[in-house]
């Protein structure tokens, strides 16, 4: 009964998300909406899973804005778990009403994805030829570069770009996004290259391409180089050298500092938070060409966000971390883990209040964002006090929608540089006008 409910639940919520994906408009707001729906789907999928998934930003940083979304695999796993129950909905459909028909449709959709999963897991137990098939390559490279995570990193960079108080330059925006995306792909690939035996031993990561032998380490390194070099070159030459330098630094920080540090000291969490904070700063510097207080504030917000996000997530992964030899706060210093999470939830409130002081947003921003910041702080406090699985999960899932919502509110409260009204729709109109000026 419970499983059936979960199955229906997943099915129903997946439908609106599919509609969300149909909205392909090159409008900032709608893109954010699409991404928000995508996050919702991730949220629902994760809700049904036993293991929480960690999304990583550009670099496998401890707490990235958007946790590693190898969701496709995860969704399949979900489907696999509820497979035994799936035949049950069928007889129900015979007596279904209009409403139930919709549910059955989603159940049928889920069933469709169940059979391939069944086949997939059987295949997993077989010996496979280590030969690279060209039509598999895009999928493999997508997983190697953690494409979904990269997409989220690019969207934080876009948020940084959008928040910068300069006229919107489309070419610059696209170049910056592409460069950031390529740099992120490179960093993620190198990270996976370094972590093959550790990834094999952790449930979350054991289906990665290098672990499964779908691609050789040499090819992974070559791919990383062929993404990283053009990516940084694009940023340095096509945008500005500062952004390029930040990008290169971030790749270095992620692959050479964070990744080895994960196994050496709990300080990796802080390094990883910096890694996650840099993309929006890059977006800002791409737009303005300089590191202002605004860039640092945006970076600061993402930095603080990383902690409740990652600390809550890592609470449920303690066994895997312990066995795999990863030094994480949740294992070695659980009290610190929770304190830090709470501290940074509260810091988010403070940082949101600083935004209007720095002329990035109007004063409506701290006011509107106060409810969500208070809510995450409340959950952070519960996590601090209760220190159990349910409070950690609640905090983690909250962090997933908290960040996009915060960024959305921030964007809509952005102080218009054209000195017109500075609220929501009118700002959208301003932007539209600014774009019209630029485009022929």
């Amino acid at each position: 009964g419970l499983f059936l409910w979960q199955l229906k639940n997943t099915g129903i919520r997946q439908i609106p998300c599919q509609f969300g994906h149909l909205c392909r408009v090159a409008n900032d707001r709608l893109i954010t909406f699409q991404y928000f729906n995508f996050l919702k789907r991730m949220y629902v999928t994760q809700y049904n899973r036993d293991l929480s998934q960690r999304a990583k930003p550009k670099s496998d940083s401890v707490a990235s804005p958007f946790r590693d979304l190898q969701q496709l695999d995860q969704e399949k796993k979900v489907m696999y778990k509820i497979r035994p129950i799936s035949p049950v909905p069928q007889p129900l459909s015979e007596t279904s009403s209009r409403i139930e028909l919709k549910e059955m449709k989603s159940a049928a959709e889920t069933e469709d994805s169940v059979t391939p999963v069944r086949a997939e897991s059987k295949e997993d137990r077989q010996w496979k030829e280590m030969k690279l098939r060209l039509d598999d390559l895009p999928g493999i490279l997508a997983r190697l570069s953690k494409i979904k995570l990269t997409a989220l990193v690019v969207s934080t960079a876009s948020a940084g770009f959008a928040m910068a108080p300069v006229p919107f330059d489309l070419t610059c925006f696209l170049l910056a996004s592409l460069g950031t995306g390529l740099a992120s792909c490179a960093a993620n690939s190198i990270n996976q290259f370094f972590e093959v035996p550790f990834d094999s031993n952790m449930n979350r990561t054991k289906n990665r391409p290098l672990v499964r032998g779908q691609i050789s380490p040499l090819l992974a390194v070559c791919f990383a180089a062929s993404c990283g070099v053009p990516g940084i070159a694009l940023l340095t030459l096509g945008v500005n050298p500062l952004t390029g330098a930040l990008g290169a630094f971030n790749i270095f920080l992620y692959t050479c500092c964070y990744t080895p540090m994960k196994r050496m000291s709990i300080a990796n969490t802080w390094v990883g938070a910096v890694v996650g904070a840099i993309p929006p700063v890059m977006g800002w510097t791409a737009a303005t060409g300089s590191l202002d207080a605004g860039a640092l504030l945006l970076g600061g917000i993402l930095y603080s966000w990383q902690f409740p996000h990652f600390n809550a997530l890592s609470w449920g992964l303690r066994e895997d971390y312990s066995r795999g030899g990863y030094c994480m706060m949740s294992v070695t210093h659980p009290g610190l883990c929770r304190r830090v999470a709470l501290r940074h939830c509260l810091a988010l409130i403070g940082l949101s209040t600083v935004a209007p002081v720095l002329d990035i947003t109007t004063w409506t921003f701290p006011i509107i964002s106060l409810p969500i910041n208070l809510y995450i702080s409340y959950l952070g406090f519960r996590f601090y006090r209760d220190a159990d699985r349910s409070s950690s999960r609640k905090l983690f899932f909250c962090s997933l929608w908290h960040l996009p919502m915060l960024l959305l509110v921030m964007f809509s409260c952005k102080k218009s540089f054209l000195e017109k009204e500075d609220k929501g729709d009118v700002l959208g109109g301003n932007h539209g006008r600014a774009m019209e000026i630029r485009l022929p």
Partner: protein
Amino acid sequence: PPAHSRNDWIGPPDKHSNLRPVIFYVPPEESPLERRLREARQEAQACDQHFWARHNCTFRQEKEEFIYSRLKAKGLEMRDETGQKATLNAEEMADFYKDFLSKNFRKHMQYNRDWYKRNFTVTFLMGQVALARALRWLRWKKKNI
């Protein structure tokens, strides 16, 4: 893997080490460089397998002992009335995880160093072999044109 195959084959994850074993194809006209690569990969595989199998078994064993000792301290049996294995919840296990991690820290440090060294060596050899093969192919093409 079939006898006529000219590629390496990778298998399902090992029960103890969770690593996937690879069976390497030995081509009849294997060059010394290629042989070095294959042997390096075999050695790396053996080292990893040995380490993780031992490590995971130790983990499982120590976990069992920990659970047993804690249950005994609480006055409970290993199996409850329904015959199911009794487990401790995550908070109680946390002490064990912390302990285990700190006990094995030096072992992991050593393994990390070795793993990075092996990984770079193997990848570098792969690069050399790929380069040699590419040059050979180019020479062959030139000859046949």
